[in-house]
């Protein structure tokens, strides 16, 4: 017997996770759901335990303190039996020998590896962009730098009118800095929102005194003889004096170590329905991954928080052997602008002229409310809400569960809003009131 039976400690898996963001937290929770014994090692380049990355704008705005950033409690890692190596960067992955090396000179072996390295700020090749006075806004360290800086400066130019740029602008404004936003696209929030929602949000920002310039960007960042930033020359010929420039165009997948290891990378690290990469037993999740999108069935990089957690979770349970595929990502964003809440989910800007989509939109500029519903094949596939967001989750249900709508139900959805009685009977029973044996979780 002794020859065939493995000892208990050999049975336990070693999971190594590169990165300590929300995808990593999802993975820990996904693994622990199915495997209590395995060893989990998390290696994170940043010094802090996993924190709410979006919260750095709340920190910069002075709305919360550093002690409110942690995503989980103090005992979290210990309780989940996770060995946490912070301030440590993984420098290489050997997929054949199943080991990673770190900048501290350690080699760590794994049975299952998760690459959850997130994104890095994209810095466009604008003349003058290299050097002092140029900042990014994606980490706690960046936020702390900008907090110190905001006491010393009067003006800032933010390049990028997407989520991160707007949040940086808003928070700097709250610190008393005069902020100008530059957005190359004809409107802010061009990725997740449409024209009308973008305009309502832009109005709020303008009303508090933030300058919003669309259809224009930086042609050159000009510096004085000491190399300090003087101002930004715009593509429309204007010159904006400023002391600092925050480049917040977005993030690109932080995939270099995967590429170096010979793992298949397109825009992000390619993963299958289990979140496994082209290398066996090596998985990827979060902003670094190019994973399946629920609605299109295509593989896309959608760098948002819920997808990162869900991919982490799905990779975790699959690494632990649960064989439950990832359900696919759903683009979704919830952002408020000085008290004006906005939510967008799914397909909100269907391709122009594509008649398979049907759009129903109602704008009330006086009330600052907007509702847009996007249908395809008699199903809801996307929506935007501004102002009145209270029924958002119920709208999300119709997209997520891909409910087929009869003409009557669709009519009610448009005119009266989403209601649980529009759900198919079977879905209602399975989720809300299942027969004891069939309880859907």
């Amino acid at each position, binding site marked *: 017997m002794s020859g065939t039976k493995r000892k208990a400690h050999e049975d336990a898996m070693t999971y190594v996770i590169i990165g300590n963001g929300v995808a990593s937290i999802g993975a820990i929770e996904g693994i622990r759901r199915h495997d209590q014994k395995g060893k989990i090692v998390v290696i994170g380049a940043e010094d802090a335990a996993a924190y709410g990355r979006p919260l750095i704008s709340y920190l910069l705005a002075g709305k919360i303190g550093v002690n409110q950033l942690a995503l*989980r409690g103090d005992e979290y890692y210990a309780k989940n039996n996770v060995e946490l190596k912070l301030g440590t960067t993984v420098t290489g992955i050997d997929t054949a020998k199943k080991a990673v090396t770190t900048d501290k000179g350690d080699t760590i072996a794994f049975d299952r590896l998760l690459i959850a390295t997130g994104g890095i700020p994209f810095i466009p090749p604008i003349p003058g962009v290299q050097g002092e006075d140029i900042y990014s806004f994606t980490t706690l360290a960046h936020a702390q730098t900008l907090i110190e800086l905001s006491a010393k400066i009067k003006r800032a130019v933010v390049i990028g009118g997407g989520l991160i740029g707007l949040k940086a602008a808003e928070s700097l404004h709250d610190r008393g800095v005069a902020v100008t936003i530059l957005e190359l696209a004809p409107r802010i929030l061009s990725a997740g929102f449409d024209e009308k929602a973008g305009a309502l949000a832009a109005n709020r920002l303008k009303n508090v005194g933030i300058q919003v310039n669309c259809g224009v960007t930086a042609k050159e960042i000009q510096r004085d003889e000491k190399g300090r930033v003087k101002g930004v020359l715009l593509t429309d010929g204007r010159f904006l004096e400023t002391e600092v420039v925050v480049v917040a165009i977005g993030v690109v997948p932080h995939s270099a170590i995967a590429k170096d290891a010979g793992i298949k990378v397109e825009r992000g690290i390619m993963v299958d329905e289990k979140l496994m990469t082209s290398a066996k037993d090596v998985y990827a999740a979060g902003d670094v991954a190019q994973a399946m999108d629920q609605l299109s069935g295509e593989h896309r990089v959608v760098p948002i928080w819920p997808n990162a*957690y869900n991919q982490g979770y799905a990779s975790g349970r699959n690494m632990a052997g649960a064989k439950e595929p990832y359900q696919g990502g759903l683009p979704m964003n*919830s952002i408020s602008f000085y008290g004006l809440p906005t939510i967008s989910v799914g397909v909100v800007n269907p391709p122009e002229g594509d008649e398979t989509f049907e759009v129903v939109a109602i704008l009330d500029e006086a009330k600052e409310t907007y509702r847009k519903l996007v249908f395809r094949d008699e199903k809801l596939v996307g929506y935007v809400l501004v102002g009145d967001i209270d029924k958002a989750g119920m709208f999300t*249900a119709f997209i997520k569960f891909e409910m087929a709508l009869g003409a009557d139900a669709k009519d009610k959805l448009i005119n009266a809003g989403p209601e*649980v*009685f529009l759900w198919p009977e079977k879905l209602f029973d399975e*989720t809300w009131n299942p027969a004891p044996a069939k309880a859907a979780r």
Partner: protein
Amino acid sequence: MKRVYPDKDYCIGCHICELACLTAHSKSKDLILAYTVERGSEGLSSCKRVHEGGPTCVALSCRHCDEPACVAACISGALQKDSETGRTTYDREKCVGCWSCLMACPFGAIARHPLENKIVKCDLCADRPGGPACVAACPNQALKQEER
């Protein structure tokens, strides 16, 4: 875990569960004060909501899902899954009012607090010795708390 299951075949839309929820989450623990005073002054609201579709009614609140969409979406860690009790817990102090959970929960179980940038969500009456007040209050046993 034991969850609260609503049965629309027995629900008569009397809203008593909502009132029981309101009272259970009030400071005074008194129905009249909860309704007439705290609703206005504290923004006290029920986690339970009775939905009506013609003659059919059903009282819904957080399902305490096994793999909750709200936890995945929560940017602050205010919403978490308690692996021991199975509850989806909410830490009011941590919440920054970003409404990500409200967007992500496909069961419409999260509401905005009427006065503050916080949410309102069922906690299964965690501190109430007798368990969920709504279940105890329903005159028709249209709400059952059981293991399924």
